[in-house]
């Protein structure tokens, strides 16, 4: 088991190297000269040349990549071209907000998705099932940021139940942070809930028709116990996969949802950087996101083996 995990961990290395190489190469292609940007408008050719030298821009591509990679590994992601602050500290400031939102969305997706999936599986092919199916195809078709706008207009501006935009850190004021988190989490998590409910329904219908469930029924267990305890357990492995995929999806969609709710997270940082062509920041955020996805995929892999020892 341990050897297996180690092997999987080692096999992540080429993916990570390729990912970093890809990011670095992409930014390398970008038009414009970071030295000129950094030197400012009134710089002499001499000053620009000095900066080019300092940044190592005259060195071969792979040498530059190696420098960037070794710095990145030690946590030095360079300096933002627009704020002149270190990229690592900018990311550090933005990360908690994004994580808070992604965790909120995951909770929404898993809880709402599980409840909807179980209900529609138990009442397969009834009106309830059809209603859940309709809701979930609508949930999958609505862009999350638009759902966010609709939620803001209905529950913040009209009903005043929640604040419209803004962000409070959960460590500074948990209660207030939650009220700020409800609408964006729903907006971001809705499509995930739709996907989870759809997949869970299919899984549960199959499991509920299996022999061991029939045995449990024959033993006289209540239907509720059978579904929530025994059938759901059988659906864990596929659910873990789907939740893992959702994390990747959320990390992308969070960018636009943050823009709607004015949340100062990685998405806001990324969008600002893209508009200002602040490449070191772009590099840093993309790298971090890819690393998170790769780690989550690995965690999903580990979960499989913990949940189902038959999987090699």
């Amino acid at each position, binding site marked *: 088991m341990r050897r297996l995990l180690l092997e999987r961990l080692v096999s992540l290395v080429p993916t990570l190297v390729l990912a970093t190489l890809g990011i670095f190469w*992409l930014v390398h292609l970008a*038009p414009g000269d970071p030295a000129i940007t950094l030197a400012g408008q009134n710089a002499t050719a001499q000053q620009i040349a000095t900066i080019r030298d300092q940044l190592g821009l005259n060195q071969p591509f792979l040498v530059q990549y190696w420098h960037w990679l070794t710095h990145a590994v030690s946590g030095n992601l360079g300096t933002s071209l627009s704020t002149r602050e270190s990229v690592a500290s900018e990311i550090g400031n933005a990360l908690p907000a994004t994580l808070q939102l992604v965790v909120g969305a995951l909770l929404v997706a898993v809880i709402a998705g599980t409840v909807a999936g179980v209900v529609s599986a138990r009442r397969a092919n009834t009106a309830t099932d059809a209603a859940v199916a309709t809701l979930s195809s609508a949930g999958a*078709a609505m*862009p999350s940021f638009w759902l966010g706008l609709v939620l803001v207009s209905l529950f913040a*501006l009209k009903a005043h139940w929640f604040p419209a935009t803004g962000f409070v850190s959960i460590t500074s004021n948990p209660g207030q942070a939650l009220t700020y988190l409800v609408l964006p989490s729903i907006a971001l998590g809705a499509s995930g809930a739709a996907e989870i409910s759809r997949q869970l329904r299919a899984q549960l219908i199959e499991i509920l028709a299996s022999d061991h469930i029939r045995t449990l029924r024959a033993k006289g267990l209540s239907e509720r116990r059978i579904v929530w305890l025994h059938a759901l357990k059988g659906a864990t492995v596929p659910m873990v996969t789907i939740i893992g995929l959702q994390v990747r999806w959320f990390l992308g969609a969070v960018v636009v949802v943050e823009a709607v709710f004015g949340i100062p997270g990685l998405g806001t940082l990324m*969008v600002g950087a*893209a508009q200002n062509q602040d490449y070191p920041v772009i590099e840093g955020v993309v790298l971090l996101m890819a690393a998170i996805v790769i780690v989550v995929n690995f965690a999903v892999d580990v979960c499989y083996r913990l949940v189902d020892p038959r999987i090699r």
Partner: protein
Amino acid sequence: MEQLSSELPGTTRGTPRPARRGRSGVVRHWLWGDLRSRLATCVVAIVLLMAIAAPLIARYSPTAQNFAPFLGPSSAHWLGTDDLGRDVWSRLVYGARASMEAAGIAVALALVVGVPIGLLAGFRGGWVDAVLMRVADTVLSFPGIILAIAITAVLGPNLVHSMIAVGITFTPSIARLTRSQVLVTKERAYTEAAVSFGNSPWRIVMRHILPNSIQPVVIQATFMLGLAVIAEASLSFIGLGVQYPAPSFGVMLQSASQFIAIHPFGVYPPGVAIALIVLAFNALGDSLRDVLDPVASTRRRVRLAARKARRRTLRARAPIAVGTGHPQAPAAGTTNGE
């Protein structure tokens, strides 16, 4: 559309094969088989019409301003006016054009690049396959929008660039799907026969492997059209796609969101349009799957019907007639979007 309706897949799974439909029959069942696909076809047809004939359908110029902002719907302005007094219906019509262009560019790019990569990886195997799939996995480890934003930032923000970026993020899925199909097709008897006749690899791939591998890819591409519409709206919303003041669903939502407190109606027309288009593409993807793979969907229906009957029996403790979904019944087009 020709390639969509080419031969049905080799059905070697032991179930009786449904009656083979002609080319036009497949298309008819795909687009007009049941209520859901009919509605979807209508939505897509209307949107395409809006996109193609935008100048004829729009009643005003999409960027013409008047001095009456935030009007509600009226006979003069069907969907009201926006913050600068521009006619929302006209902007929606031109927005549909941007949206369809965007979806077309992104999905076409993903197919043109992804299918050959998948064919090459699956057919050649060995290190070529290993390298290509490792690259595909790497691209897939970036959240799609993030990668698209980075690529757009490098290329410069506009509709074409952002959709090239989205197309790049779609490519690895297409390549992987194509490859997995090729691996199956490669082992089929007809491919072996073609090899033993001494056909060139090019001919084998183009004549035998590609036509028999492409169907799931086309189905996937249909779903991707919907994803691309959402991607266009998202990227335009954050200012990296269609550039203000040109109309697009994303740009419209961006300006509507600024004035959501005074004119909340503004967020609905573009949002509902996006949702309808995505629903329509998803429905067409589902019905295409049902039509192209009728054996699988018939079997699924039989299985589900049998299970449902069994559960009822267990619950009611009374025997009940098993639903008779006969394998040879015309399957496609009658499934209700499972």
